[in-house]
């Protein structure tokens, strides 16, 4: 289990996170949601990496994350970042193999090669396998990076290590409709086989479709935490995103649909919101560089 207790994070005089707690169990897909600049990526960075905190602590499998060695941590958790280099001078297979680096010293063995093939199959990227990474489109690169991250913690039969964690920071940001679904289905299958997945997602509909639990954060504090149906109410979305929505139950799937009411958006409101967002996201990017 991953447990983050009472996380507060301040940079300069700006409080980015204020007493946020979360816990994620094996088999759970937890989504961190919230508007731009709410502190989502900062929180993901804190729970996925060794970050020195003044207040609060993170434990993974019962052990304080600061006490895990980098190598140990690399074998139990993998992180897909929001931004990745677009011009890696390697073949796709080589990039995926990089995910196996924590598991071999000099040369990959047969298991590593098999795992790379299993991942190529899982993500349906056979047609990309022998291409140069730099020639792929943004969405294809994102899927290859996901492949690398999966390779890092890929579990094989009779593999007896404890719970493994997958952290995804906006994993579908460059993907088309179809691949958004396939990637989240992969994540969902991972949870079914005992992984714990923590993702930052923006699309409320995808969240309500896939998430077991949602942590909605707003201006650095927890706004709501629970199942999507519990968290996403009209009032709360209005309060957090400043947008009126209709909540509709899809008659075919029974899924909760969140549809924005565009008539409620005033032009000047968009402008002020936007500039506010930009300031925040610049600050957050700076923070992530410095921590």
């Amino acid at each position: 289990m991953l447990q983050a207790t009472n996380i507060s994070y301040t940079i300069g005089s700006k409080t980015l996170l204020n007493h946020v707690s979360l816990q994620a169990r094996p088999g759970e897909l937890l989504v961190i949601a919230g508007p731009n600049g709410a502190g989502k990526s900062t929180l993901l960075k804190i729970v996925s990496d060794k970050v020195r905190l003044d207040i609060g602590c993170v434990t993974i499998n019962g052990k304080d994350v600061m006490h895990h060695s980098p190598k140990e941590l690399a074998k139990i958790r993998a992180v897909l970042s929001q931004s990745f280099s677009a011009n890696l001078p390697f073949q796709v297979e080589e990039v995926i193999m990089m995910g196996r680096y924590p598991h071999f010293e000099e040369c990959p063995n047969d298991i590593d090669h098999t795992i790379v093939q299993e991942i190529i199959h899982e993500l349906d990227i056979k047609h990309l396998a022998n291409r140069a990474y730099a020639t792929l489109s943004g969405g294809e690169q994102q899927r290859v990076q996901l492949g690398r991250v999966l390779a890092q913690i890929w579990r094989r039969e009779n593999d007896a290590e404890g719970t493994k964690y997958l952290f995804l920071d906006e994993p579908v940001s460059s993907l088309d409709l179809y691949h958004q679904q396939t990637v989240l289905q992969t994540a969902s299958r991972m949870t079914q086989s005992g992984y714990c997945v923590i993702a930052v997602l923006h699309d409320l509909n995808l969240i309500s479709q896939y998430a077991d639990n949602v942590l909605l954060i707003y201006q650095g504090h927890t706004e709501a935490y629970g199942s999507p149906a519990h968290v996403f109410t009209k009032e709360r979305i209005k309060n957090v995103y400043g947008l009126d929505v209709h909540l509709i139950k899809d008659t075919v799937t029974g899924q909760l649909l969140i549809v924005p009411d565009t008539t409620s958006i005033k032009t000047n409101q968009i402008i002020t919101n936007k500039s506010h967002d930009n300031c925040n996201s610049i600050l957050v990017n700076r923070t992530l560089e410095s921590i």
Partner: protein
Amino acid sequence: MKISSTQRVILISLFLLLILFVVLSAGNGALYISPSQIFSIVLHKAGINEMVIFDEGQYNVFWVIRFPRVILGLLIGAALALSGAALQGLFRNPLADPGLIGISAGASLSAVLMIVFLSTLSATPYFKYVEGLIGYYTLNIVTFIGSCVTSLFVFRLSRSNGKTIVTNMLLAGIAINALCGALTGLITYYATDAELRNITFWSLGSLGGASWNTVLTILPFVLIPMVMLPRLSKSLNALSLGEREASNLGISVDRLKIQIIVLSTMAVGSAVAVAGIIVFVGLVVPHVLRMMGGYNQRYILIGSSMAGALLLTGSDLLARVLVAPAELPIGIITALIGTPVFIWILIKHKKESQFI
């Protein structure tokens, strides 16, 4: 990452070329020694009687002058190119070279200081004592210390909150280079004509000071990085994903940075100390390797050592035979041979590398 078959072919070819050039370079010069004579001289030294006849003069020229010089060329070429490759990997910037982090600037400044103030210094009793201890190698040792001090200084400037910030390091390197350049200029201004000539020759590089003593002095400083740096190739490959990604893969990025800076300074500092400034090798050799065989750091690091050694051995041969019996500064030759080769490869691979 495994070394691909293309990369293996390149490495083997480099190795064979290297042997060829060692024999050529050891045999040619003011006194010609044929390859078979070289072979029997080496065997003779090992206690096996000669098969081909050679005379005493050839034996001495080979053993006292040529061979240590060839070995020194190999070591220095390998040191410069290897460090260049490692630093380019670390900075994830193809323009990084050993000069960038202040190694060469510090070496120049201390060398120029030594050359210009040697006469004044020699008068002091303390210096006489030190010189008595290290003798002929005073300039080399001072230069090595100078290069270590500046690169340490650049490294300190780039640290913040216990982490090394690569951008800061580049900026600090530029600042220290400018400062050392200005001070070097200032001292040069006060130098006499004879000292100026010394300074010019030093800054163009030469293997003229080669002896078994110099070879033995720099041997550990080059061999340790040659063994250690290729061991970091997996981490360097991962670093190309980005610092955060590498750290998520369990690599201690900060320790990696320190290891690479220390090992590179060791190699380049000692090379500059015995041979002066030899530009171009550290910057261009890794590029040529990448353009020929790809970006696997293991291949680039091993290949750069061999290609750097090859370039320097070849250049030294030309430096000695072109204007024999005089000799040209080797830095001129490395740039004269290397640049056309580099431009040729650049044009040839322009199309393929447009995505990279």
